[in-house]
């Protein structure tokens, strides 16, 4: 695997399920993106995903877990086994799924940066023009500000819609249906 140590603003490198995640500082996102594209050949931005971690791990997860390591059928089911997911540094995560689109050894990586309520992320239209619609969708659905985006307005919802639906504190909406809480 190529070493990603020389990336400006690098916080940590995570390897899980065969995917490498590069966590960078929010301020150096644009330089990290330019660096990845020029030095490591990630010329294709396939997707920008914004994730809201409000209330992450509050529910507490009990009961047995299909952990990849031990899944011995015979161990009695441990009811009280509390496996709380790791805490996340900030509320929002912006994941940029990059692809080195080349004939020899194509490679995928996730460039991740953490954003708090009210903070904005630098636009990457200069690096990858395809980021235009993705960033507008992240702004529309999750309310994450994008600095320097030339055409930042809602893309999926009405322009006069208030609130950002994919946030965890936004209600699902729709009509209450009998027995709707047993979803």
């Amino acid at each position, binding site marked *: 695997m190529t070493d990603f140590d020389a990336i400006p603003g690098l916080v940590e490198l995570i390897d899980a399920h065969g995917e490498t995640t590069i966590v960078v500082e929010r301020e150096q996102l644009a330089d990290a993106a330019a660096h990845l594209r020029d030095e490591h050949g990630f010329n294709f931005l396939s997707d920008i995903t914004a994730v809201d971690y409000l209330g992450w791990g509050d529910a507490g997860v009990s009961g047995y877990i299909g952990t990849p390591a031990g899944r011995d059928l015979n161990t009695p089911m441990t009811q009280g086994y509390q496996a709380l997911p790791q805490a996340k540094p900030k509320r929002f995560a912006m994941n940029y799924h990059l692809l080195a689109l080349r004939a020899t050894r194509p490679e995928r990586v996730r460039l991740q940066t953490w954003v708090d309520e009210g903070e904005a992320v630098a636009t990457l239209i200069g690096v990858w023009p395809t980021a235009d619609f993705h960033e507008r969708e992240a702004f529309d659905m999750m309310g994450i500000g994008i600095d320097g985006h030339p055409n930042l307005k809602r893309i999926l*919802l*009405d322009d006069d819609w208030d609130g950002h*639906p994919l946030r965890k504190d*936004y*209600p699902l*909406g*729709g*009509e209450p*249906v009998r027995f*709707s809480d047993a979803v």
Partner: protein
Amino acid sequence: MALDGKRLRDLGLNSERLLMPAKGPSNFEEEVNDLEQKLGLTTLEKAVAWAQTNSMWPDTFGLACCAIEMMAIVASRYDIARFGMEPFRGSPRQADLLIISGRVSHKMAAPLRQIYDQMLEPKWVIAMGACASSGGMFNNYAIVQSVDKIVPVDIYVPGCPPRPEQLIEGIIRLHEAVKAGVPPAYELRSVAK
């Protein structure tokens, strides 16, 4: 039921009346018959109703997955040209029937209502599929929970997406209701007033 050697067509996916000839007329037909007695159309009105049902032109209003199955009823196997509905009109001015095929989001509600208003009367509406009829499996902030909230609907066709036969069954029932003298939905329910 041995399948080998038999093509699907030979299994005969016919409508229920052919499959169960002994069953006699379904309750829908009984309703239509005694409606006809009650309303008592004059021969002129019957002629007009007959003319309307045999050339009821649908408006191309394809939204989501049901639009693909709506396109299938125009194609050769389930052809609705047999019922005089050959041309799918582009503009609502020349359309009599609005088949709302797919889920209607809040952003699409205003254009849908405008197109319905721009259709000339008499006009009918078929809510095709679960999403148009009742919001389907999308009970959330984005989807209008039933098209009934926007336009008066004549026929609700269940299914997700409904088979082409189901949609044609809905269309035939609409034709039979109009021939029996049932007025269009905007007269029954005063949404359009």
